């Protein structure tokens, strides 16, 4: 029973990170109308920036976090015109072309990380960000600072995001574009400006996720982004592309499933089993469990 509780706690913390990633991914899909496949790779890039800044500033946590968040926002802003140009070229929304473009961005990020940072070796985050000891421990159940941060920040950020989406004028604009871009333009919502706002917001979400991943994983490697990006796309499809509530449920479920597999099955099978489950769902219900919103 102790193993079960410990793994559920682990699963909830990693699941909340998946939720943040899927939320940022879906925001870009709904408002900017792109499949930003490499969004998690941008997040891993931010993790590397955090590591670099911590190293250069003698582990100044505030500067590290600021650098992580601003690098994700900056990266999103730099890539935004490329996506816009593709849309303009084709004179219509073509999410498939944006996915291919995003994949190319992802390969570049992964290859740059494996060549230019730490000689391609995995990076280790210092204790200042990961926390040195568990906050509490009963038998096999131990709660690490990273888990508490991931869960609490995850809940706060996702709640804040839903409030923004459903209770503010900007949120209404986001939803209007997601529902009907042509109609939104007719009623005077600036599509490009709102699209850029979604890039900024997803950048902030990505930067915060990078900090949480650093706290949870304590390390990162160039291949991490690829693995997470495949999971995020899979979660998003299983939930129903663009479905925010579905993303929340499936993201948490994936985290718990992975943690339980790690707890009960020996060997490196957790990713494969998670992918098998998602594969079955996708093959049986390609439009997702909660329905597509795009």
């Amino acid at each position, binding site marked *: 029973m102790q193993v079960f509780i410990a793994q559920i706690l682990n699963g909830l913390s990693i699941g909340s990170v998946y939720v943040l990633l899927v939320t940022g991914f879906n925001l870009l899909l709904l408002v900017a109308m792109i499949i930003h496949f490499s969004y998690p790779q941008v997040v891993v890039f931010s993790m590397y920036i955090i590591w670099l800044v911590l190293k250069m500033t003698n582990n100044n946590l505030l500067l590290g976090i600021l650098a992580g968040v601003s690098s994700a926002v900056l990266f999103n802003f730099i890539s935004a015109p490329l996506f816009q140009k593709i849309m303009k070229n084709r004179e219509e929304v073509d999410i*498939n072309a944006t996915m*291919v473009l995003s*994949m*190319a961005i992802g390969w570049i990020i992964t290859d740059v990380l494996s*060549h230019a940072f730490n000689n391609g070796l995995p990076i280790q985050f210092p204790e200042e960000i990961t926390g040195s000891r568990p906050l509490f421990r009963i038998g096999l159940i131990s709660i690490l600072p990273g888990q508490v941060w991931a869960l609490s920040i995850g809940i706060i950020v996702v709640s804040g995001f839903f409030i923004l989406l459903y209770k503010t004028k900007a949120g209404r604009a986001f939803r209007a574009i997601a529902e009907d871009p042509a109609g939104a333009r007719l009623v005077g919502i600036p599509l490009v400006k709102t699209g850029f706002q979604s890039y900024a917001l997803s950048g902030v979400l990505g930067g915060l996720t990078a900090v949480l991943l650093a706290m949870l994983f304590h390390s990162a490697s160039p291949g991490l982004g690829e693995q997470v990006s495949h999971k995020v*796309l899979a979660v998003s*499809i299983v939930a129903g592309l663009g479905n925010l509530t579905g993303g929340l449920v499936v993201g948490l479920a994936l985290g718990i499933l992975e943690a339980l597999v790690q707890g009960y099955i020996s*060997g490196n099978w957790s990713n*494969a089993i998670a992918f098998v489950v998602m594969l079955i769902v996708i093959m049986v219900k390609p439009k997702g469990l909660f329905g597509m919103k795009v």
Partner: protein
Amino acid sequence: MPLSLYYYLSITAVNILMSWALYVPYRMTQLHFITIANMMISGYLAGYLVLHVHVPFVCALLIGFVVGGIIGYVVSLFIGDAPTFAVVIVGFTFIYITRTIVENLSIVGGTMGMFGLPNIGGNPVAHRWIILGILYGLVVLCGFLIYRFDHSSIGRAASAIFVDKELASSLGIDIKKLGMLVQTFSCTLAGGVGVLYGFIYKSFHLDFFGFALIGVYMTVLFVGGYSTQWGPLIAAPILYGVPLFFPPAVQSWRIVIYGVMLILVLVLKPEGFITRKSVYSIGLALSRKREKVIRS
């Protein structure tokens, strides 16, 4: 034949064939990355059969094609008409699952890989010529089949689906059936190419089938041009060959170079360098020249 030339020619042929394996399903907007997993499955299976069960290479190669085709057919029953992103993620999940299984299977060498595959034809020189012969034979055969497909009513139906799925459906095109056909073809091809890919190096290793392969084949397809089969055929030798002339320090950034090229092409020349229009213009010019020669 120098070893470097052998590797260049054989990998170029593999790149052409695998880009075609992506090209055919992309005719109806499906990016079918399961082909990479199929290369791995058929390749390792054939390697095991040749090395441990002493099955002749030709039989192992045929088994590779058949296994690839069966997997492609079974999967296509579910995702024959699925949207692009669903097909993409099914491909990625298959790659992950296959990699994890291979990693944990000691009979195929696990993370260490499978080494010591025999020379086909008894000696290294014969081995190289046989591999090249089979690969380029396949290029000719597949080139012909894809040409016939492109110029048939099925090819036109695929083009209609590419332009507008709803419209194609209302015209009576069976999207699922066509999806199943193209997916099964591409998986069959990938299965056989996977076997040959391992036998080029006489070994199999998980690193041969990494996600970077998808990057290479996608770049060949999109930079060459995804709207005609000639795009990958022309782009593959150039894209693989040109970086070989770069200094080693630059060569190691090959994936970054491919990524930048792909982005530039998507933004500046969305259909790639060889488009249907350019093929049509060249064809027209050639036929006019021929007419002129006949008249004179």
